[in-house]
């Protein structure tokens, strides 16, 4: 078996909460609390969950834009967790990112060609001419006309801007692309185009995606494996087909039953969960989901369920799924 393109082990991020003049640390927000997964080359792992569950933090830690408080990040089987900026540079180009906001993630003062060419400038010693040719080819790859290189980002539509973001991520021919809600800011029709572009590129270059989303429809379209996060932890991780056909964790069930169906006459059992996500600063004891779980029993309130591997390979963290 080949090494995973990207693997994280027991990744943790605890943000200190500081108070007073001396910045005393009074508590920690456990934004991410022990997340592990592996993505094989050419595969897409989708991280889903409510806002604030830590999925974006995981994505940024994978790129080391945020330093993890614990755990390990492995790229091509090599641990890059503690590497200094200089030692990290060769790995930087193996993992790139597509951002959520296609407006704010492109420098408004730079032309599209320079934005897409910036990673090349950083890593390759190309002459201006060669670099522009490379950029032109990248433009074609993402379905933009190369003569748009001289235009500024604000002259493009939202979908085109996201294509620019994808072209920038592709420039260094990375093995992994982390996409943090790359389509949630786009119109539905444009969403589909961008998703299809991402899938075409995956096929062409054998890319692995870490795809963060809250939209189950999007996830069902693009994902191979789905990881469901709740309050900084993965509660269920399984191949797409099984998780949508037969969700095990009550939270997964609720999420999937809440996703709208295209058929208005279709009936299905809705599991409606009550209340809000508890504060990650003061998570409930035991299973973090027990405060909202319709099936919770006494054991859930005291004992934290471990993420256990089932015989069919899926992993679930729930006492009720034995």
């Amino acid at each position, binding site marked *: 078996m080949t090494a995973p393109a990207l693997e994280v082990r027991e990744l943790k991020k605890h943000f200190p909460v500081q108070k007073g003049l001396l910045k005393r640390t009074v508590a920690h927000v456990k934004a991410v609390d022990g997340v592990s997964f592996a993505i094989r080359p050419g595969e897409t792992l989708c991280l889903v969950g409510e806002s604030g569950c830590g999925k974006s933090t995981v994505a940024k830690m994978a790129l080391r*834009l945020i330093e993890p408080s614990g755990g390990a990040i492995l790229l091509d089987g090599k641990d890059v967790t503690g590497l200094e900026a200089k030692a990290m540079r060769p790995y*930087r180009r193996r993992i*790139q990112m597509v*951002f959520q906001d296609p407006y*704010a*993630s492109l420098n408004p003062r730079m032309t599209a060609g320079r934005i897409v060419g910036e990673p090349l400038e950083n890593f390759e010693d190309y002459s201006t001419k060669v670099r522009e040719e490379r950029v032109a080819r990248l433009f074609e790859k993402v379905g933009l006309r190369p003569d748009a290189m001289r235009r500024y980002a604000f002259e493009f539509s939202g979908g085109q801007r996201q294509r620019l973001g994808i072209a920038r991520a592709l420039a260094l021919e990375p093995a992994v692309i982390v996409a943090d809600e790359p389509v949630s800011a786009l119109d539905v029709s444009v969403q589909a185009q961008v998703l299809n572009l991402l899938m075409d590129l995956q096929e062409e270059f054998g890319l692995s995606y870490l795809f963060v989303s809250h939209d189950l429809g999007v996830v069902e379209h693009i994902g191979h494996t789905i990881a469901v996060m709740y309050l900084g932890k993965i509660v269920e991780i399984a191949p797409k087909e099984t998780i949508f056909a037969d969700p095990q964790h009550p939270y997964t069930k609720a999420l999937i039953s809440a996703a709208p169906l295209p058929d208005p006459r279709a009936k299905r059992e809705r599991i409606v969960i009550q209340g809000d996500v508890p504060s990650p600063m003061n998570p409930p004891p035991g299973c973090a989901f027990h405060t909202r779980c319709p099936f919770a029993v006494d054991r859930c309130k005291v004992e934290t369920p471990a993420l256990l591997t089932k015989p069919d390979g899926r992993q679930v963290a729930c006492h009720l799924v034995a």
Partner: protein
Amino acid sequence: MSAIPERPLAAAAPAALGSPAHLLRFSRRNPTIVAGAAILIVVTALALLAPFFAGDPLSMTPALRLRPPSAEFWFGTDHLGRDLFARTLYGAQISLLVGISVAAFSIVVGLIIGLLAGYYRSVDGVVMRLMDGLMAIPAILLAIALVALTKASVFVVIVAITIPEVPRVVRLVRSVVLGVREAPYVEAAVASGTRTFKIIIRHILPNTIAPLIVQSTYICASAILIESALSFLGAGTPPDVPTWGNMIAQSRLYLGPAPWTIFFPGIALAVIVLAVNLLGDGLRDRLDPRLARRM
């Protein structure tokens, strides 16, 4: 369906840059910029061209002392019989030199410190407390101290006024940097391997330019005023140099019999500060309505 009345786009014909039509439209939309810039250009031209048409600002003719404005002496003469017109024009040289130098020095120094303090959070606390300390020193007091320690010269005055202005620039730049460093496009640059120096220069620095241009005009205006105050107090430029502050100080005893001796340098000072402030206000509204208020 009723026809929507076509509203012609205002001034649809795009006037060529710099053409008379373009200039006219620009001045109608930005009267303060044009007025301020026009006054400054005239004053600067007069100051620089003074040697060619104004008399000698230093030659004394006691026989012609305290003469009112006339065809020979446009602004009259002072108590030593010196030509006030010439002295006022030469005074403008000093004022402009001090104003522009202080603005340039404080912007350059403040920009560098501000970029570092804003980007590197570890140095921020120390640097900003230092800046707070500097800000507490009054420019006039510092100038008096520096002049007492060294020899009075225009350069010392420039240094003395620059030092307390630097923290204002640092605060402005730092606030811009703090806002921009979290922007997704900066994060994107980090992710694509851009080195820190390049991130600061390419992605962060350009955002500080507009507010700094505006800030520099305010610094320039206040530097001109402080220089005059220092000259007036005798703590600035040496008294033999014709500056507006020196002129007002030396003429204050003759305010009653010869008001023109104070009137002309005073008016010149008011006009130039007004012009710089007009320009600054106009630029602020045009370049950056949010950020560039005096901090």
